[in-house]
């Protein structure tokens, strides 16, 4: 019988939640790396027992942990993320040049085919790759060398590369997103990159339709249609049907189009999920009600999903990497909150139950569907 393993990164450690395919009873394992910030952990699609975790601390810096047994035991691997060459500068919040400086790994994206190859999206924004299971890391410097790189500025969370999408139909195509530079795509395995932000409109920058400067919060795709992308921007939910060449807004009837995560149903490429947040100055859900919104039409027409979720006095946020889906026949949806709850739906969002309620603030949620 199939089972699921939910990998949860929190402000104070990692937790691994497991259940059989019914997704009714859960075992909670953790904390792993107690006291450390776990921005993200994710399993290899090519070897589900191979997990990578980003462990960091404002005091003691970055560590990368690797597991070869599904998270039972862990091994420290390489933590040296050296920018290629002389890194130059980007812009700081006040508009002055600032040398690129590594702070932490926000996102780890294992290769679709090789358990030893993994990508890391870091702050200050850059993309690294390891081909030896995380022991050594090399920057794909063509991204930061983009002609606009010296003009990138951080969002409130830092100049972070937080989204990495590997195209399952083209090993040389990768999509990434940076707050607050925007989305970029390579078609040559990371040598060269182009900004793919046409159609985005951001009123909080001097030129709302500039080539870069957009605070993209998250991008998602369905693996059967890698040319169709969905984006949750700082404000606005967007869609591209041409691999990012152009975007159009699909916020439709959402109560607010600010938010962080966005994800796609495992079996219905036009069914997408967001969690509307009241505003960029109030990072909590509207009206004290925690509701996921689902569109079955690829955007524009949205329905609230709140059955089983708190519908009063709730003021949590759901961060950009804190939503994921499983691939069981009835698609499961999972998300974690800044209040430490991890919610699961075994019926594509129609109803929800908490797997666990009182973890540290949740930074990331990933799901593995195991045979």
């Amino acid at each position: 019988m199939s089972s699921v393993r939910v990998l949860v990164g929190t402000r104070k450690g990692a937790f691994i939640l497991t259940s059989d395919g019914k997704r009714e009873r859960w075992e909670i394992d953790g904390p792993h790396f107690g006291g450390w910030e776990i921005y993200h952990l994710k399993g290899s699609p090519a070897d589900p027992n191979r997990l990578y975790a980003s462990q960091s601390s404002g005091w003691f810096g970055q560590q990368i942990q690797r597991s070869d047994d599904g998270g039972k035991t862990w091994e420290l691997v390489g933590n040296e993320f050296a920018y290629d060459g002389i890194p130059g500068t980007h812009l700081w919040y006040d508009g002055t040049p600032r040398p690129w400086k590594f702070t932490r790994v926000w996102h780890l994206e294992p290769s679709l085919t090789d358990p030893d190859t993994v990508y890391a999206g870091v702050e200050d924004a850059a993309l690294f790759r390891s081909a030896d299971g995380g022991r050594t890391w090399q920057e794909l410097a063509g991204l930061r060398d983009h002609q606009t790189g010296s003009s990138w500025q951080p969002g409130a969370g830092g100049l972070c590369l937080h989204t990495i999408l590997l195209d399952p139909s083209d090993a040389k195509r990768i999509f990434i997103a940076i707050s607050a530079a925007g989305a970029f795509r390579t078609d040559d395995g990371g040598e060269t990159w182009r900004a793919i932000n046409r159609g985005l409109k951001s009123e909080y920058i001097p030129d709302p339709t500039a080539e870069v400067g957009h605070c993209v919060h998250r991008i998602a795709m369905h693996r059967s249609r890698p040319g169709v992308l969905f984006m949750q921007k700082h404000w606005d939910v967007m869609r591209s049907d041409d691999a990012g060449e152009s975007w159009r807004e699909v916020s439709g009837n959402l109560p607010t189009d600010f938010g962080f995560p966005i994800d796609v149903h495992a079996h219905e490429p036009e069914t997408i999920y967001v969690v509307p947040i009241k505003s960029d100055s109030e990072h909590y859900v509207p009206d004290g009600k925690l509701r996921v919104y689902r569109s079955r039409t690829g955007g524009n027409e949205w329905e609230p999903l709140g059955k089983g979720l708190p519908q009063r006095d709730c003021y949590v946020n759901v961060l950009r990497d804190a939503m994921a889906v499983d691939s069981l026949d009835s698609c499961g949806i999972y998300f974690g909150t800044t209040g430490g709850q991890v919610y699961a739906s075994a019926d594509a969002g129609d109803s929800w139950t908490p797997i666990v309620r009182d973890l540290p603030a949740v930074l990331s949620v990933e799901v593995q569907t195991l045979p």
Partner: protein
Amino acid sequence: MIRVVLPAQLRMLAHVTGEVQLEVEDRVTQRSVLDALEARYPALRGAIRDHATQQRRPFVRFFACERDLSHEPPDAPLPDAVATGAEPFLVVGAIAGG
């Protein structure tokens, strides 16, 4: 034998409990002690000093003999009491909230 006390987070990385004891063959300085510490526990590389610059991370401090040695030159001799093992060299995480 040099005695080193690590904060809990670094003991977790190094998989040690209690004090660490090190042989330091060169002059006993911050640099030689930390070099020996990292050679014995490679997991600590980058966690106390920056990989590239070898500078102390901003929220890490070095204490010994009731003195803050954090701003001493890395090649300055540590107190005799540390060199003889009478007193430990303390690696401390700065107190900050959360």
